[in-house]
């Protein structure tokens, strides 16, 4: 099995802590994934209009490149990339007419029919490594931590690309494999408001308040996620929500891969707390995890 890795734009800058912690963890686990030598933006959102095929070309090009590399699988970390690549893949697999139009349009690329499997790192870890193997490799299990898994939208909707359609508990299983306690909370699949941060930031603040308070009420010490836009919205709004007494306290927010790197006993240069906000860094200090030199984000 050959696995290609698709990072996506945000992981090279604003979400470097998502990428760095994941790649360092995979290296420590002995899992070989190679970044696609050439990739472009996935388009971030799947085009929903029936007559809009041009916007499918960007994610399909990435899939073609994975196929040309001889890869069976394309693994992603960012939830939005996962969703747009997986949906484009299903379209190319299932819609004969649109597939032909898109393939005919892409004159420089090989024809694509959905040959590559798009997978999120969480399910990839479960299926290729297994939770028991992961447990055996932990050097600093997260014993005593209560972690809320925030799935958001794009990992679970629509149903045909849900990372785990049956139970929707795969991130909770991951948390428990790391030795922490998975905290169920009502808002785990409520949208954070997404790109409405550009047009309706007040609506985003309101829904973020509901999500944070729901996780806090359920007893979570911290929340994990895999989407840089969710991360931005969930971190950015907390100070205002706290001042307006819409949330009881600031909830630390991490990428799932940061917890993985910590539990594997890797250093802060791998889990990159320098890119987290102050509340999250304080939480790590309280749990005796080294935080290195941290230029704190407000």
């Amino acid at each position, binding site marked *: 099995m050959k696995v290609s890795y698709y990072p996506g734009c945000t992981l090279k800058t604003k979400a470097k802590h998502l990428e760095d912690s994941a790649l360092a963890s995979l290296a420590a686990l002995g899992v070989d994934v190679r970044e696609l030598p050439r990739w472009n933006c996935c388009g971030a959102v799947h085009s929903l209009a029936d007559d809009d095929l041009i916007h499918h070309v960007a994610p399909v090009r990435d899939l073609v490149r994975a196929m040309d590399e001889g890869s069976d699988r394309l693994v992603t970390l960012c939830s939005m990339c996962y969703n747009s690549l997986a949906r484009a893949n299903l379209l190319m697999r299932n819609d004969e007419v649109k597939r032909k139009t898109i393939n005919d349009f892409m004159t420089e690329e090989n024809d694509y029919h959905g040959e590559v499997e798009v997978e999120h790192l969480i399910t990839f870890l479960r299926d290729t490594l297994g939770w028991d193997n992961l447990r055996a490799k932990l050097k600093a299990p997260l014993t005593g931590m209560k972690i809320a898994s925030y799935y958001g939208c794009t990992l679970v909707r629509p149903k045909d690309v849900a990372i785990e359609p049956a139970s929707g508990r795969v991130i909770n299983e991951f948390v428990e494999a790391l030795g922490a306690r998975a905290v169920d909370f009502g808002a785990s699949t409520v949208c954070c408001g*997404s790109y409405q941060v550009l*047009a309706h930031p007040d609506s985003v603040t309101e829904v973020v308040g509901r999500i944070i308070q729901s996780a806090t009420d359920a007893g979570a010490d911290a929340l994990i996620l895999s989407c840089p836009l969710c991360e931005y919205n969930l971190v950015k709004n907390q100070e205002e929500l706290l001042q307006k007494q819409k949330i009881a306290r600031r909830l630390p927010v991490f990428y799932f891969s940061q917890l993985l790197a910590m539990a594997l006993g890797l250093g802060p240069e791998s889990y990159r707390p320098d890119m987290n906000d102050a509340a999250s860094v304080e939480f790590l200090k309280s749990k005796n995890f080294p935080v290195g030199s941290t230029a704190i984000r407000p």
Partner: protein
Amino acid sequence: MAIEISEKTIKHEFIEKINQLSAQDISMCFQCGTCGGACPMSARMATLPRKIMRMLQLGMEERILELETGWECASCHACTVNCPRGIDLARVMEAVRLLVLRKNINKIEPSRLPAAAVRELPQIALVSGFRKLTS
């Protein structure tokens, strides 16, 4: 306010356009409101999705295109996965947006976003926002 609804006011071409763009059959909706109940943005919505669906069924083109609902949608698909009639409402909202955007109208102006926000926003926020809210 009284609204006149008659065979004369129903814009069948508009209904057909929405059905084509969304690849959905909007006549399937029976206004149960599950969509609005599932919608994370509904708390501040003046007009909930089930009302939009009824207005679409009645071909009320001008009034629908003036409403804010489609622009408040975050395309999270909560309505889609919960609809008991199997309607993909996220696609219907996209169709409503596109009928405005395809007239070269921008809902947000990228050049007017505060520079500080552009610097700190993740790329996927800008790409997805521009895809959904600009022409």
